[in-house]
């Protein structure tokens, strides 16, 4: 009985704890200071390849099937990762638009962002470091 109750508590508390806060970040050197949600969407979904100020944007994504990636797209456009893949599959056909570049881990993603002033990506709030600048913050659930 105690075991079942413990499991229930675990199930209820787990997502909140694991989710943390999702942040869209750029390098500290980037001239972009903040973005609206739709601007974030337009960048991540390939509508625009430049930031609103005209700077070229290099969009980075996490590896497929990572928990945070699913979380991010659900929060951003309310789509599953499979739907996002299907979306890009249609665009890949023409070859003109390319999906965000995938990184193997959040650490590598952070490295990529730090190393380029054009890079943009998303991280969990726990991983926020000084060399990163938050341009969009998902509202807390």
């Amino acid at each position: 009985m105690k075991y079942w109750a413990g499991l229930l508590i675990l199930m209820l508390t787990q997502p909140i704890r694991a989710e943390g806060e999702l942040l869209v970040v750029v390098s500290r050197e980037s001239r972009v200071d903040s973005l609206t949600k739709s601007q974030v969407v337009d960048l991540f979904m390939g509508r625009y390849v430049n930031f609103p100020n005209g700077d070229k944007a290099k969009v980075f994504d996490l590896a497929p099937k990572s928990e945070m990636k699913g979380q991010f797209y659900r929060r951003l456009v309310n789509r599953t990762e499979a739907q996002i893949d299907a979306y890009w599959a249609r665009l890949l056909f023409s070859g003109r638009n390319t999906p965000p570049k995938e990184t193997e881990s959040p650490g590598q993603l952070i490295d990529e962002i730090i190393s380029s002033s054009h890079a943009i990506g998303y991280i969990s709030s726990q991983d926020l470091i000084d060399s990163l600048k938050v341009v969009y913050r998902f509202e807390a659930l």
Partner: protein
Amino acid sequence: MRRFRHQLYFKVALAIALSVALVAVLSSYFFYFEEVERNEQVSREHVNQLSRTIEKTASIAVYVQDSVLAREIIDGLAINDVVSEAELISEPGFSVYSGEKTLIGREGLSTLILYNPFSEDEVIGQLKILPNEAFIHHNAKDAAVNQAWMLALLTLVTAILVSFIVHKALTSPLNSITNKFEEIIPGQNSHISVPRFHQRDEIGRLVSGINTLVSSLNQSIDSERNLRKKTEILEKKFRLIFEQASAGICLIDSDNLLLTANPAFERIIYKSHSIEDAIGLRLTDWFDNKLQLESFLTDIRQSHHLDTVALDLKMKTLPGSPDCWVHCLFSKVLDAGKQSNLMIEVLMYDVTERTEREINTRFEADHDGLTHLKNRRAGRRALIELFDRAKENDKIAVIMNIDLDNFKTINDVRGHEAGDLVLIEVGLRMMAVFRNDDLCIRWGGDEFVVGCYFDNARFEERSLPAIEKLASELRCALNQDVQLSCGEDINIGASIGIAMYPQHGRDLESVLKAADSAMYVSKHRGRNQYSIFDPKLMGEPDSCPRNDAETKS
């Protein structure tokens, strides 16, 4: 063919065919347009569905402004038959179209608003499709024509089926009934059999009705036949009665023309007339007193009381042939409803012999057997009539009383035979002197009375001399010798007394008496003379007729 055209099943089939053709044409016409409309609607819906199918991809292509993807989509759309041209438009000048130029400004476009795939309230472009109207219309027309043909075919098949069923169920049994009905001969006990499967429906009832009718017709024909047979027998009997009757029977119309007559009638008529055919001739022409009979017949027709009248009539005869008398019974025949056109039935017996016998009997009864003058009884009756006529017409009735002189002596000396001879001779001479309608009467024994008329006007100048002349003629005639059978002549004479109405008496008896007394005056004056009654002489007592009557001659 003409016959065929009048057959019921042909008419029914023709009517069905015509109405079906009408229905087929009308419904095909109506449904054609509806079908065209519907098909076009379907095609438009198809276009809409097509655009909705690629909506998501199109909005993605517009979202990322991927002209390759957009081209792919537009070309894919244009492959569809229902699509003529397609175009994807995005606001900032992004436009991909399949045709030669942009579709903006064209009519009949199907437009789909494209939204941002990640934000439902941001419009990012439009998908415009120009439907292939020609294709759609052609397609719709084809479908509608097919539909119309199907409808027509269906109606035709239905019509054929209905015709067949009507023929099988209605006209064919009716036809067979009609054929059998035409074969029915009235009077023969023929029946129509009910067609199979129709025992309980209207056709069955019709057949049983016809059968009932036919059998009742046959019954009435039978009874009619029997009746006619009876009537024929009866008619034969009546004709026999009519033709063999001893009495003459005939029927005359309102103009007295003969309508029909039996042989007995014709025998009576032909006895005295040589006529080829009596029918159509006037009945009254054959009788002696034609005018009288005609007015009598008119009376019968007009009178409500006279229905049957019997008359003895004398037929008109050819000169020289014997008299013919018939007893006739006239009866009115009322033809139902024709009051004006009155016929009269005449029943006629030849009564010539009987009438002659009667005439003889009456003559014998009224006349003296010896002299053939009227006897006293009939004479007195005739004198009364004479007086009545004289009174009515204001005339003079003259009575002459004639007494033979010395007749008793002749009788006694010469015998009764000689006396009879004298009396006969006297009668003949009197008849010769007087006119036919003067009355000559043997009053009794050797006494005679004559009655005659004279005009009253100018009595003294004309009538009186005439009377005196007549009296003197009579005296002369009676004074002639009479030759007896033995050849000897004997001289006779007569005393005549004359009296007149109204001069010498108001009635017959007084005038007779006056004439009688005047006769005695003649005897007293020496016989063989005439005397007119003189009232002055009547005063003498010895002139009393009764006393003298015993002493006379």
